[in-house]
């Protein structure tokens, strides 16, 4: 079901992108964690008080003053949503649609390797990339906190938060990968594959702004990733994670089936 030669090639091809994203995440994590001040409330909290609406739009309104809530608010409301999402968009297109669009898919299919195997392998490449990115962020967060504020971080809750982000990103990855498998043109694959999650993200930002648009949260799957709820241990938030994961499985499954059955003009 998996072709290891293709897998190695895919991971090799993803390395550069992964390193860039890891570097960006490292920068944000280091800077933002250093702004935490357990005694007085951080400089960021001052911002939140001064401009509550603006900070809410990008998900930066901490529920409480502990370190894990601080990270949830300032890193997992925007940074950890946007950068892995960007990785999904770029790598989904690179793994399938671009090969079909350019014609290099010819070589992958003029060999005794089933289309299902090609699509499944490429999916595993993408999932591996996402997993590594989130795993790296988790370790980075823990190490950073333990160095600067030993013992302050609730590691269990932080890991659960990262599992939640991974479920959300797998779901987004599923959308991008499905589009990459449906469209023969890179531009449509990226257009629709990026368009849907970006639009949903904008709806979420509007819902965060509150007031009249609050009900918009029912129109976006980002609501299923309830980071406050995950930290508070709400069962609803855990169910949201489960639904996102199940959705991701369904999206990837559909993508593989569609790719295996469609006509390829290569």
């Amino acid at each position, binding site marked *: 079901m998996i*072709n290891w*030669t*293709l897998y190695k*090639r895919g991971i090799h091809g993803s390395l550069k992108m992964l390193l860039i994203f890891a570097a960006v995440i490292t920068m944000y994590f280091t800077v933002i964690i250093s702004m935490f001040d357990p005694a007085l409330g951080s400089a960021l909290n001052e911002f939140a008080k001064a401009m509550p609406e603006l900070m809410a739009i990008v998900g930066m309104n901490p529920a409480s003053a502990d370190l894990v809530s601080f990270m949830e608010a300032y890193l997992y409301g925007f940074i950890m949503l946007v950068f892995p999402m960007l990785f999904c968009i770029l790598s989904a297109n690179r793994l399938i649609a671009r090969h079909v669009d*350019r*014609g*290099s898919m*010819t*070589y*992958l*299919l*003029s*060999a*005794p*390797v*089933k*289309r299902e*195997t090609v699509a499944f392998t490429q999916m595993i490449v993408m999932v591996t990339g996402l997993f590594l990115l989130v795993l790296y962020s988790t370790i980075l967060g823990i190490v950073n906190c333990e160095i600067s504020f030993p013992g302050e971080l609730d590691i269990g809750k932080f890991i659960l938060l990262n599992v939640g982000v991974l479920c959300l990103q797998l779901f987004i990855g599923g959308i991008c990968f499905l589009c990459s498998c449906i469209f023969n043109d890179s531009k449509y694959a990226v257009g629709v594959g990026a368009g849907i999650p970006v639009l949903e993200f904008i709806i979420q930002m509007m819902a965060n702004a509150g007031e009249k648009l609050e009900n918009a949260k029912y129109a976006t799957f980002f609501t299923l990733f309830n980071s406050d709820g995950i930290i508070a241990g709400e069962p609803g938030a855990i169910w949201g994670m489960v639904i996102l994961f199940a959705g991701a499985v369904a999206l990837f499954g559909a993508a593989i089936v569609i790719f295996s*059955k469609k*006509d*390829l*003009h*290569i």
Partner: protein
Amino acid sequence: MGICEIQSLTRDYGNGRGVFNLSFSINQGEVFGFLGPNGAGKTTTIRHLMGFLKPEKGYCTIGGKDCWKDRADIQKTLGYIPGEMVFFDDMTGTEFLSFMSKYRKIKSNGRTKELLDRFELDPRSKLKKMSKGMKQKVGIVAAFMHDPEVLILDEPTSGLDPLMQNRFIELVLEEKAKGKTILMSSHMFEEVERTCDRVAIIKNGMLVALDNVQTLKAAQAKKYVVTLENEDAAVEFAREGLRVTDVTLNQVTVIVQNNIKELISVMNRYPVINIITPNQSLEEIFMQYYGGDRS
């Protein structure tokens, strides 16, 4: 039953494009030429054989297996040169060939080395920076390296210089001698004449001719170049009602189909000093199927 069967294959792209009710069969050990102008449906047919497209109607099989349902299985013993060489980014030729060999799970690489020597190819540079001819050679090596039983070659020598075209023809003849079955689409008429047993010609997605290369050539109207004593005689000669395609100084080119006696009787009345029959290429035969305006 041929090793490769195409039966009532239909795929309609609209506006008369596609392939329509196409049927032919290729025998084991045969080199089969597949000709037609651009847009005639050659590549569409090949895409069906490769299992890239699902037939709207009809079916095609290779070695008794369905080209759509059993496509991965068929690929075990199939070699393919695509009409367009598009490789992966940032790989060198060596990396690409080693990737394909591992991807296909080929045990020995002896054949690859032999092919690289034969085509004098040093694959160590980046594929992106290779010339068209070099890329074509990489594609040829990738198609033959696993010693396939059936070969589908879509314009295999485009971009190659005459020396390498010749090497390729030798390779095809060797494979044919080993009993391999080859389908070859081509615009290089010399390679078709030298290698193919039979030729199918398609136009607008329909089969217009299928015959031995020899029969096709024999069915062709013959061309004669008659040289006369002077230009005036040549002009007069051209007005005799024969099918004249060209008058150059004192030379007249005449096309004759079953009326050689008429030509002889006309020639008797003129000061003819020479007559030659130029060697006609398959291209000229082939062009007759497209309305004859270029013959």
